[in-house]
């Protein structure tokens, strides 16, 4: 899958979230308007209602800002593919922007800090590869599963280790390699023999 297609999928998911945010703001503003124009409320009641609605609107705006900023940063990665880019930041962006897909399946996803991480010289490879793996995990894992991503380096290669402690996770992810056929050049996926987790390898530019 190309970076453009992956970017399209990620931005469609993020925009769905954004439209929900805008719908929430629109309805809250609409309700304020209704309370002002349609309901005969006294000033004190009106003020009390507005006091509860304003924080909700701030919350929605904050959610929208995070989405817009994340999408903006990801857009720059795709538009300007010259590395290096901090791999952990890229992974966090991708997880944040696809969180709706995880929520739909009642999954939780976390990117763990793991000491010195690495920068990838080819952000598009990691973006496509990790995007494909996340999508396959979202589709395969059972509800309530918790997926943990840990970034690091092994023998000069960048690695995203994927772990899930759900009892059905190993069986659910048995077909992960097949589901992720066609990974970008230089990106590899293998199952770890020690704990049946998975590792996504990607070209690493330097230690940070």
């Amino acid at each position, binding site marked *: 899958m190309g970076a453009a297609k992956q970017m399209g999928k990620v931005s*469609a998911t993020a925009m*769905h979230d954004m*439209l929900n945010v805008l719908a*929430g703001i629109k*309805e*809250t503003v609409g309700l304020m308007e209704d309370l002002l124009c349609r309901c005969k409320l006294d000033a004190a009641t009106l003020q009390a209602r507005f006091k509860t609605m304003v924080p909700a609107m701030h919350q929605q705006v904050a959610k929208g800002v995070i989405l817009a900023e994340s999408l903006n940063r990801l857009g720059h990665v795709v538009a300007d593919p010259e590395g290096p880019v901090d791999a952990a930041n890229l992974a966090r962006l991708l997880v944040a922007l696809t969180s709706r897909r995880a929520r*739909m399946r009642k999954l939780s996803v976390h990117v763990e800090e793991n000491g010195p991480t690495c920068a990838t010289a080819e952000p598009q490879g990691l973006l496509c590869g990790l995007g494909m793996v996340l999508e396959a995990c979202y589709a395969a894992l059972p509800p309530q599963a918790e997926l943990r991503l840990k970034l690091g380096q092994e023998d000069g290669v960048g690695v995203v280790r994927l772990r899930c402690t759900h009892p059905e996770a190993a069986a659910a992810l048995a077909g992960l390699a097949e589901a992720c056929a066609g990974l970008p050049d230089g990106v590899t996926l293998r199952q770890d023999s020690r704990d049946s987790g998975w590792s996504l390898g990607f070209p690493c530019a330097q230690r940070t």
Partner: protein
Amino acid sequence: MSLNMDQWKVLLVDDEEEFVTTLAERLSIRGIATRTALDGESGLRRLAEEIPHVLLLDVMMPGMRGLDVLRAVKRDHPAVQVILLTGQGSSKDGIEGMNEGAFDYVMKPFDIDGLVAKIGEAVAKAVGGR
């Protein structure tokens, strides 16, 4: 037979709690009795407790998806008219839903007056079909 707005019965099912509460209140201000649920499973339970004329149904929800809820409703309560709510730029789910028997679909964010007009049309069809 036509019903006054204050006789319309609407059930709103969407996983965005703030949105659900606010939209339900806006419809209630307009005299439309609106009950709510935050997921497909509880939506079906609420629907069985009291059959509404119109179900406003989010397409993308955690757990039971909107289109699965739609199929269950059309199978068990075919007179209930379903208006799908979608936040997606693509109208694919809405069109698929209409092929599965939905009355119509609207994309979020939407205009409340347009939604109320659509609910009115759906109520007329629901009452005519009972």
